[in-house]
């Protein structure tokens, strides 16, 4: 119960230096992601772009939004939000990415034509 009173008294005030450093990093990463998009890396392009985006977003959340100083409950909520987004995207994608499987020739299905695909 003391957590309450203390959360109130001990507000974590970020240092200006920290904030500016994060800002600098964000700007650099923006440049970087743009630059990388000019290279031809095939499927790596999207992976790198997303990695950069995720790290930028984490910095904003962690420092600017102060997640690092919040309660573990808040952290849990943040993670839950992302996990739920992940559930939606991954399961939906699992449908799209496996839809054709049964309709393609399969060793155990004696059906060379494969019938109709979608």
């Amino acid at each position: 119960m003391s957590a309450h009173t203390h959360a109130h008294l001990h507000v974590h005030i970020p240092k200006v230096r920290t904030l500016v450093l994060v800002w600098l990093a964000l700007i650099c990463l923006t440049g970087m992601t743009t630059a990388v998009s000019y290279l031809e890396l095939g499927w790596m392009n999207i992976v790198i772009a997303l990695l950069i985006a995720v790290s930028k977003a984490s910095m904003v959340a962690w420092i600017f939004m102060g997640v690092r100083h919040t309660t573990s409950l808040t952290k849990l909520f943040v993670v839950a939000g992302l996990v739920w987004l992940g559930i939606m995207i991954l399961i939906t994608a699992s449908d799209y990415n496996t839809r054709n499987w049964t309709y393609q020739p399969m060793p155990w299905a004696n059906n060379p034509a494969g019938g109709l695909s979608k």
Partner: protein
Amino acid sequence: MATLTHGAPEIAASEVNYLNVEHGWKSWLFTTDHKRIAVLYIVSITLMFFVGGFMAVLFRINLLEPEGIFAAETYNRLFSMHGIIMVFFFLVPSIPATLANFLIPIMVGAKDLAFPRINLLSWYLYVIGAFLTMYAVIRGGVDTGWTFYTPYSSTYSNSYVLAAAFGVFVAGFSSILTGLNFIVTVHKMRAPGMSWSRLPLFVWSNYATGLIQVLGTPVLAITLLLLAFERIAHVGIFDPNIGGDPILFQHLFWFYSHPAVYIMILPGMGVISEIVSCFSRKRVFGYNFVAFSSMAIAVLSFVVWGHHLFVTGQSVYTAIAFSFLSMVVAVPSAIKVFNWTATMYKGSVSFDTPMLYAFGFIGLFTIGGLTGLHLASLSTDVAMHGTYFVVAHFHYVMVGGMVMAFMGGLHFWWPKITGRMYPEAWSKFAALIVFIGFNLTFFPQFILGYLGMPRRYHAYPPEFQALNVLSTAGASILGIGYVIPMIYLIWSLKNGPKAGPNPWGAAGLEWQIPSPPTTFNFDETPIVTEEAYNYGPLEEVIG
């Protein structure tokens, strides 16, 4: 159970309470008192229930004749509006926005929900949404079914899809705000000593419901928005002609709407836990499991939505996974059913009206849930999808389950909400009528579905007539069963005997304060020292 420094029962009824503290319509329309908002909600959703029920009666009449009585157009609009109104404007807000809104702050020992003004806002959003939808009804209705499947809804239907979709969109935010308020209230507003393991199970189940509302509803909102764009500007997002995928709409829709069916049952399960324990005078058997199963349902409900897409051409492998997960999500429901039953074991069971509804709930939900397994199993779903079997399944869980629970809860807490008792004999009679009417309406539909009668048909092959006539007969009995309580409850507002603070001798903070409660529920924050459902010997408590 709680040490209250004041609030002797006798002074309660004549004192100032939340109902009479202020007068005039403004004091109601601008109130931030969760109890008054709950009352506003009760009035609004009851209205919507009767509108939706009236439509059901109309289209059930149509089904008396195989060729149908109304034009196809009329029928289609009736069942679509029936589904939309019943789901989004009645059942989703039914228990959370009324009973839970009223009770959660009291049950956790708080003066109000965490965000009283947001609570009021949520009611206004509900009303705006309802008006938009009623506008659609008056202009001629919607004929897409409550599921709004594309491309029919986005390109082909020439009914008032936009108005209805916006209505649901707005009402969705009302639901989100209610859920958000519950979550924060349960986390942050509990009275000293009210630990998680002492929370009434009603609070647990509404907390779980809140999670679903918060995590699921936004997806419905954006999906309906995309649908609206597609309909207005033909942008192609769900248009198969240019490569859009109509099944994507279904994925997004059911990502919300499957969890939503648990929004439409979890609060009811909470009510049943309270009622069964009170009228058996026993702590709920396996409290931890019942509480935990609510959370399990909330989480698992998000990974089974694809069982609505078994015959759409969804990937076979994904379908198999969804079928498996649907079985998994059924387990926590089973746990609850068994625990309620076990609670009565060695109890001291009385048969007051709320308990009758609880019996109804357990039995009918079990049937509804078990027939859900027919649908969760792949090859039987292929045979039964789109037939009356599905209609019967979901009315058993939604009407036989949730509406029963709502009625039970309403009777249980009616003395708390209004300070008056309802007439006992009439209420028992009505409960019986509802039970009989319900089964007569919907059991024949299982057989119809098994025989292959498709749903959403305004005309059907003549061999299905007998069962349809039965079903319609049942629906009229059921309708009467709902009208009777409506009458005697209103009657009881003026003429019912005054209720003391604790007419049932129930445990729980809400029974320790006057009926009806004062505006701030507690004059001093209570300090909780005991677990929920701490039923002692009978004589001591009833007062």
